[in-house]
C-alpha cells in the first residue's frame, strides 16, 4: 500500500475523480466485492432507503457545489481584478438592505427545497412497521451478538468476533483481502425481506453500522433501539462499530450475509441442529487434548484481546502465573462465569456455552507455563452455575 509514483497522478486528480465516480455511481452493489481503495463517495448500497439517502446526499452536494462556485467565483474575480496593484481606487459602499434581504430569503427558500425530500426520506426510515423478522443485536466490548427472535422461543443466538489474526494486525504476516472486516460467524438474513434490528448493548455504547444496508443505530446499554433494512441484492455487506467503545473499538466489524430465502431457511435449520448438538456435548467427558484444542480457540476469540496472546496481560491481568489460574478451580470458574464487577472483566457465563467454558478454563490452567494438570468438564461448569 505504498504510495507509488504512478499513483501520484490520481492523487492530484482526487477531486476530479470524485466527480467522475459520482457520475458513474448508481448501480447497486452485488456480491462480495472488495471496495476499491480510491472510493471517494457514499454508495447507494443494496436497499431502497440507501438509494434515497444517496440521492439526497447528491442533491445537497450539487446544491453546495453550485452555491460554492458562485461565491468563490465572485470572490476570486474580486481578488484578481480589485487589487491595489491594478491601481483600483476602493469604493466606499458598505450597506444595502435589499442585498441583505435577498441573501437571507434566497438561502431560506433553498433550505426548504432540501427539507422536503429530507423529511420524506426520514419518515421512510422511521417506518418500523410490518417487519418480516426481528434480530436482536447486542454490542459487547468488543464483539456483536445476534439473536434471531422466534415466536416459539426457539431463538438462535451467536456471537460474531473479529477473525483477522493478531499476526496480520501486528504486521507479522501479510494482510488479507478483508483485513479487519471479517468475522468468525456473520449475520445471515434473507433477501427482499424487511428485517428489523433491535439494537442494544451490554456494557458501553456501540453503534451498529453497515453502510451498504443503510443502517446505523446506536446500541445503548439498558435501552433498545429499532432500525431496519430490506436488502434487494444478495451479497456480503461489511460494516463496523461506529461509536467509540474502548480499546478494541476499531476491531469489532459487522458482516451481514444476505442470501436467498431458501438458503436462509436452510441456514437457520442448521443453526438449530448445531444448538442441539451442543446440548449433547454438555453431557460428554473430554480428554485433555480435546479440551486444550477447543480451549485455545475459545481463548483466542474471547480472552486474547485483553489478556494477551501468551497470557501476558494487557488491559486485563496476566494469566500466565496468575493466582487465579493457579489457584482453586472454583475461584477460576467463578471469575470466568460471573466476571469481576466494576472492571472490564465481563461475565462470560452467558456468552460462551459450558463446553467452551470448561475448555477455556482448562486451557488457561495448563497453557502459558501454568501446567496445573487439572481438567474441567462441562458438567463442572454446569454444577458451578447451579451453585
Amino acid at each position, binding site marked *: *500500500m*505504498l*504510495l507509488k509514483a504512478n499513483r501520484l497522478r490520481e492523487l492530484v486528480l482526487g*477531486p476530479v475523480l470524485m466527480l467522475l465516480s459520482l457520475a458513474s455511481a448508481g448501480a447497486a452493489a452485488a456480491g462480495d466485492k*472488495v*471496495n476499491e*481503495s*480510491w*472510493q*471517494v*463517495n*457514499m*454508495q447507494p448500497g443494496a436497499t431502497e432507503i440507501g438509494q*434515497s*439517502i444517496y440521492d439526497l*446526499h447528491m442533491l445537497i452536494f450539487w446544491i453546495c457545489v453550485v452555491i*460554492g462556485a458562485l*461565491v*468563490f467565483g465572485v470572490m476570486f474575480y*474580486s481578488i484578481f481584478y*480589485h*487589487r*491595489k496593484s491594478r491601481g*483600483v*481606487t*476602493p*469604493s466606499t*459602499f*458598505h*450597506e444595502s438592505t435589499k*442585498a441583505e434581504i435577498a441573501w437571507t430569503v434566497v438561502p431560506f427558500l433553498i*433550505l426548504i427545497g432540501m*427539507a422536503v425530500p*429530507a*423529511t420524506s426520506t*426520514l*419518515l421512510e426510515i422511521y417506518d418500523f412497521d410490518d417487519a418480516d423478522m426481528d434480530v436482536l443485536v447486542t454490542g459487547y466490548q468488543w464483539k456483536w451478538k445476534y439473536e434471531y427472535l422466534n415466536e416459539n422461543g426457539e431463538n438462535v443466538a451467536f456471537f460474531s468476533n473479529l477473525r483477522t489474526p493478531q499476526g*496480520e*494486525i*501486528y504486521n507479522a504476516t501479510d*494482510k488479507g483481502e478483508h*483485513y479487519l472486516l471479517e468475522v468468525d460467524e456473520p449475520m445471515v438474513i434473507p433477501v427482499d425481506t424487511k428485517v428489523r434490528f433491535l439494537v442494544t448493548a451490554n456494557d*458501553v*455504547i456501540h453503534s451498529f*453500522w453497515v*453502510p451498504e444496508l443503510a*443502517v446505523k443505530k*446506536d446500541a*445503548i*446499554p*439498558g435501552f433498545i*433501539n429499532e432500525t431496519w433494512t430490506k436488502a434487494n441484492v444478495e451479497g456480503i455487506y461489511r460494516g463496523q*462499530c*461506529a*461509536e467509540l467503545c*474502548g*480499546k*478494541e473499538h*476499531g476491531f469489532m466489524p459487522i458482516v451481514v450475509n444476505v442470501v436467498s430465502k431458501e438458503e436462509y431457511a436452510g441456514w437457520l435449520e442448521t443453526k438449530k441442529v448445531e444448538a442441539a448438538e451442543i446440548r449433547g456435548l454438555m453431557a460428554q467427558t473430554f480428554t485433555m487434548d480435546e479440551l486444550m484444542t477447543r480451549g485455545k480457540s475459545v481463548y483466542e476469540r474471547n480472552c486474547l484481546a485483553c489478556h494477551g496472546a501468551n497470557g501476558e496481560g*494487557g488491559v486485563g491481568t496476566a494469566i500466565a502465573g496468575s493466582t487465579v489460574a493457579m489457584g482453586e478451580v472454583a475461584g477460576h470458574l467463578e471469575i470466568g462465569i460471573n466476571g469481576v464487577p466494576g472492571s472490564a472483566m465481563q461475565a462470560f457465563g452467558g456468552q460462551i456455552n459450558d463446553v467452551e467454558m470448561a475448555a477455556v478454563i482448562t486451557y488457561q490452567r495448563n497453557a502459558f507455563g501454568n501446567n496445573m494438570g487439572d481438567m474441567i468438564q462441562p458438567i463442572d461448569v454446569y454444577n458451578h452455575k447451579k451453585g
Partner: protein
Amino acid sequence: MGAHHHGPAKGLSRWLFTTNHKDIGTMYLWFSFSMFILGGAFAMITRAELFQPGMQLINPAFFNQMTTLHGLIMVFGAIMPSFVGLANWMIPMMIGAPDMALPRMNNWSFWILPPAFLILASTLFMEGGAPNFGWTFYAPLSTTYAPPSVTYFIFSIHVLGLSSIMGSINIIATVMNMRAPGMTYMKMPLFVWTWLITAFLLVAVMPVLAGAVTMMLMDIHFGTSFFSAAGGGDPVLFQHIFWFFGHPEVYIIILPAFGVVSQIIPAFARKPLFGYDSMVYATAAIAFLSFVVWAHHMYTVGMPVAGELFFMYATMLIAVPTGVKVFNWVTTMWRGSMTFETPMLFCIGFLVLFTIGGFTGLMLSIAPADFQYHDSYFVVAHFHYVMVAGAVFSMSAAVYYWLPKWCGRMYNEAMGKTHFWISFVGFNIAFFPQHFVGLAGMPRRIPDYALQFADFNMISSIGAFIYGASQILFLYNVVATIVAGKPTSDAKTWEGAEGLEWTVATPAPYHTFETPPQVR
C-alpha cells in the same frame, strides 16, 4: 504622563502578579500556543500510527488516549485561551478602556489554567493511562468503564471551566462599562461584538459542562446512577447535557474568529465592512440558534421522529445567518483595493475553507443522510475544516495583523506568506481526503483500518505532517520578530486599518487610554 506611572515590574513577579491586560493577554497567547504544539504533537502521533494499516508504533489503548487528549487540549487549551488572550489584548484597546474591568480576577482566570492542564497532562503517567473516551467523553465509557485518571480529568474540566466563566464575566463587564464616550454598541468593532456574544454563551453553557462532569463524579464515586440504566439512569442523558454545552461551545470557538476576519478583511480591502448591522444580527442569531440544535450530534441515538425533524430544521436554519456573514465578507472585498499581506491571506484561506466546512455542515444537518455520515471520517473532515481553517487560521491572521502593534517590530512578510501557503496546502492534503474515506465507510476514532482506506490515509498523514511542520515556521517567525524584527513606530501598521487600537503608539505602551478618547 506623571511620574507615578509605572512600567512593568521586573522578573517573574511581573508575570505572576500582573493585572495588566496586555501582560495577561500575552501569557494567554503563549500558553495557548504551547498547548497547540502539545495537542498537535498528539495528533502527529495518531497520524503516524494511521500512516499505514496495521498497528506499528503505538497500541490501541494509547491511540485512544492520544485522540482524547488531542481533542481536549486543542479545544480547551489551544483555541479557547488563544481567543481569550486576543480579547485581553485587544478589547480594552478597541473600546478605549485603560484595562479590563476586573484586573485581579483576570490574573486569576489565567493562572488557574496552567495547573488545570498540568493535571490533565499528568494523567498520561498514571496507572491505567490518560482519559481514553474521546473529547466528548460519553458515559458509561467515561464513568463505569473509565480509567482511574478520569477523576483528575473531571477536576481539570472544573478548573478550566471556572477560568472560562471568570474570563467571560470580565469581558462582559468591560464591554458594558468601559467603552469610551461616544462608543455606542453599534459603533463597537465587530471583534468586540462577537466576543461579547461569545462571553454570554460561555457563561450560559460552561456551568452545564460542570454539571455533566459532576454527575460523572457522583456516578463514579458516590453510587449515583445518572448515566447508568441499571440504576434507573440514562446514558443518553449524558449526551443531551454534553451537547447542550457542546454545540454552543463550537460557536464559542468560531464567533471570535468571525470577529477577527471582520476586522482584517476591510483593512486590506481598504473599504468599510459591508453590512455591519447585519453582521451583528447574524452573530446574535447564530448564538441563539446554537441553543436549540444540540441533538443534531445525536441523530442515531434513537430519538423520536418529531425530535429528529425539529433538530434537523433548526440546524438547517443556521445556514442562513452563516451565509449572510460569508456574503458580507465577499461583498466587502468586492470593488475594494486589495493587497495580500499574510493576515489577508489567512483570512481568505479562512473564507474558502470555512465555507467548505459550512457546506459539509449543511450536509450533516440532513438527518437521514447523517445516518450514513455520523461518526465517520466525513465528520472529522467537517469539523477540522471549521475548527482548524476557521479558528486556527483566523488566529494566525490575528497574530500577524496585530503583532507589530504589540511588539513594535515588523514580522518577516516572506516567511509569513510561506507559513500561510504551507499551512493551506498541508491542511487540505490532510483533511480533504478524509471526506472520501468517511463517505466510503471509515469510522472515526479507530487506530487501524481496512485496506481500502490505506491510500487516502497515507496522503492524509503526509498532509498532517506538512501542516504540523508549518507551525514551527510560525513559531520561528513570531520569536524572530519579537527578538530581532525590523523596528516600526508607525501607529498604523496597515494602510487601511481602522479602529482605536491604531491610534495609540507602536509598540503599544504598557498603559493605554488612561484618559478615554472621544469617539465621534
